């Protein structure tokens, strides 16, 4: 369960990204977060992964109040949260397989675990045959699937997707969304910030609409409406 209680985030006195936002996301939910640019979608996701701290209010994740999380606790939090981005953020000099293994290495996973887990995840994202390719040899969709595989390396409870289809064509976009649905069905809570109205409408899942840092609509089986 993710709970936002009257959360505000201001980058400066004039620019408030979020304003007294209250939101609850039960475990296992799939939420699309929509809104115009600057509505606060990315800020909301960054607050969950503790990349940003709230200016006011409280954020609780599975009973853990992360509002004033200590620096040394952040790595522990992030190992429970997978994050994917529009620009993939893959290491260009490492193969697809190594990109996934890297995430487990920095977290101190034993080599044996890495050898067992990574092929399993690569299979889940349907990239077994492309495991030895470098990022520049992969298509946009494949790159995003590697990024998802990396995000799944720790079997996270929560998956944050910030515009995951922003750089992809319609076919690959749908491919990625299918994968996110599959991951969600395995029990992972998925929060996806997106501008893609076709996908949001086709999903028929919960849609949270933000405007100027506030929740203006929150509907199950909702549609993309700004």
């Amino acid at each position: 369960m993710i709970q936002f209680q009257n959360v505000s985030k201001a980058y400066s006195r004039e620019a408030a990204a979020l304003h007294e936002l209250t939101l609850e996301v039960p475990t296992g939910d799939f939420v699309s977060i929509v809104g115009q640019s600057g509505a606060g979608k990315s800020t909301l996701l960054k607050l969950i992964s503790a990349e940003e701290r709230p200016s006011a209010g409280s954020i609780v994740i599975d009973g853990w109040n992360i509002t004033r999380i200590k620096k040394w606790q952040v790595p522990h939090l992030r190992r429970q949260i997978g994050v994917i981005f529009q620009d993939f953020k893959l290491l260009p000099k490492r193969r697809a397989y190594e990109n996934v293994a890297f995430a487990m290495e920095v977290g101190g996973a034993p080599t044996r675990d890495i050898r067992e887990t990574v092929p399993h995840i690569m299979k889940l994202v349907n990239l077994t045959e492309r495991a030895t390719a470098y990022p520049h040899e992969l298509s946009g969709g494949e790159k995003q699937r590697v990024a998802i595989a990396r995000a799944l390396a720790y079997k996270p409870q929560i998956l944050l997707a910030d515009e995951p289809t922003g750089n992809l064509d319609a076919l690959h976009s749908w491919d990625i969304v299918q994968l996110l649905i599959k991951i969600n069905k395995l029990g992972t809570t998925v929060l996806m910030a997106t501008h893609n109205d076709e996908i949001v409408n086709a999903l028929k899942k919960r849609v949270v609409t933000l405007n100027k840092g506030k929740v203006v609509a929150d509907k199950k089986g909702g549609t993309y409406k700004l």
Partner: protein
Amino acid sequence: MIGISFWRILRAALQNFFRNFWLSLATTVIMTLTLLIVLFLYFANIFGSAVLYTIEQKVDLSAVFTDDASEEQIQATAKSVLSRVDVQSVKVVSREDALTQFKERNADKPFIEESLKELEDNPLPASMFIVATAPEQYVQIAENLSSDRYQDVIAQVNFEQDSQDVIEKLINIISTVKSTALAVTILFAVLVVLIMFNTIRLAIYSFREEIDIMRLVGASRWFIRGPFVLESMLVAVSAIFLATLLVYPALRGVAPRLEQFFFAGLTAEAPFDMYAYAVSHWPTVLGLQILLAIGLAVFSSLIAIQRYLRQ
């Protein structure tokens, strides 16, 4: 877990070191120069002290006792002089000892022996030789011995001002060398810190994607810092190796010339051998380098990475 992490950090450090080879080499060279200057300061200090000690032993401050001075008076005077804080030792030569030494020195001159036989009494006075705790104390001791307090016991005070001048000049030279070398060392240390900052910041820049992803996937701060700290330690160890490789052969070549220049005719004992000293004191020489190089490397890399982690 800790073992695995350490191995991975070490592997990343080695990769960083070789991927930024020219930067690593430049930092190693500067670090080596700093170590060489510090070692020069250290050895110059040791050698200067050895030269000074030898010259000090050559300083001639002696007092000749009056013919009337009794053995008790002589011993009391010697004891009184020895009780001064600036006096290290006092050696009393009695009239008999002086005569014996005189005869030994002139054993090959029969006319002196004959002359002595003509005299009924021992013509040589008793005397004492004084060694001060520090060279600058001699003038003061000499003045004190010439004072009224000892006028009934001491007939003459012998002190060569020339020796004092030589010592003062030497002290001045050593002190100048020390302060100059210290200033140069500090200058180089600052340069090393700045260059190491830049090396590490450039390395961070070239690894910014990996660092970003490390943070993203929950790498601990030490896992991110580790490779950069270890890389700078690797630079320090290389610099220590290079400095040692240069210093010992240099000392071996220079030591005999230094001995010849500073100690020839100055002492009957074996002269101070700088190379032998450096070999026998290798733990101190190595320890000094480790303390400086590793300390400097770890300090500068921690500060640089800390600044980055705050961003």
